[in-house]
């Protein structure tokens, strides 16, 4: 599992780069790196369904965001150049945060099940009876469309609302000239 930890560290570093860079296009490319690393992490955690959805959604998000940036502006005009003092203070803050998280982490995360041993209270039933009751070989598909189909219906409605929202915000007919 060493590869998993290395990929997670890569994701953290890429997220830091995405946050702190001044050029917006470089930030978006770093965000893409985080997304692709997350795809490989999903594959390592034995979830191929999630990996497929994550990679195509990541590509579509990147295309839309880069197109928006090319049409509007590319340089972040809100950040002045950082002096050495500010960089040192940022690093000290980061080290304090990490020590805090690591020190309290053993207390806070003790309630969570240890990595690799999930409690599996409801999933035992799904794993045992999934193929018999639904007839689907892919157990994740049987969960989202048969056992918990109502949640999928809600999600389809949320997507519909979001699409209507985007079209309503960006429509050009019927708007008053300001």
């Amino acid at each position: 599992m060493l590869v998993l930890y290395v990929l997670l560290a890569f994701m953290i570093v890429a997220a830091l780069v995405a946050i702190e860079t001044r050029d917006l296009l470089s930030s978006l490319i770093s965000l893409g790196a985080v997304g692709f690393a997350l795809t490989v992490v999903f594959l390592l955690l034995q979830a191929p369904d999630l990996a497929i959805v994550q990679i195509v959604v990541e590509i579509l998000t990147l295309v839309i965001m880069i197109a928006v940036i090319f049409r509007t502006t590319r340089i972040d005009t809100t950040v002045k150049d950082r002096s050495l003092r500010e960089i040192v203070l940022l690093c000290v803050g980061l080290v304090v945060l990490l020590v805090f998280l690591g020190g309290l982490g053993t207390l806070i995360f003790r309630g969570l099940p240890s990595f690799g041993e999930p409690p599996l209270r409801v999933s035992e039933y799904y794993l045992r009876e999934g193929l018999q009751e639904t007839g689907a070989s892919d157990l994740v598909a049987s969960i989202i469309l048969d056992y918990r189909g109502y949640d999928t219906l809600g999600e389809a409605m949320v997507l519909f609302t979001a699409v209507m929202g985007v079209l309503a915000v960006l429509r050009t007919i019927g708007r008053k000239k300001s």
Partner: protein
Amino acid sequence: MIIYVMGFILFGLGIYCVMVKRNLIKIVIGFAIMEYAVNLLFAIVGYRKGGLAPIITARGKAYFVDPLPQALVLTAIVIALATTALLLAVCVRLYEKYHTFDIREIRRLKG
């Protein structure tokens, strides 16, 4: 245990970006990082050591990982895309009106 801490650090980076940055696109990037962190933590909780992907093949049943968190994350990824698109639509409209992405200059609420 370390892996949960790393997931929370990623989430913390996302929150830092949303709270501190003053550029609208950076705020959208912060939201995207938060969504990645949450999906990652769900998938980590559902992993079983030595388990395989929960797909029944011709060889019959095997030792599977937990399929329930994967079903929850599948929904969450697509909803994250819809949310990001709506955020970007509002950003585009704000840029058309104020010609800047700086949130300190976008203060007057016009009707």
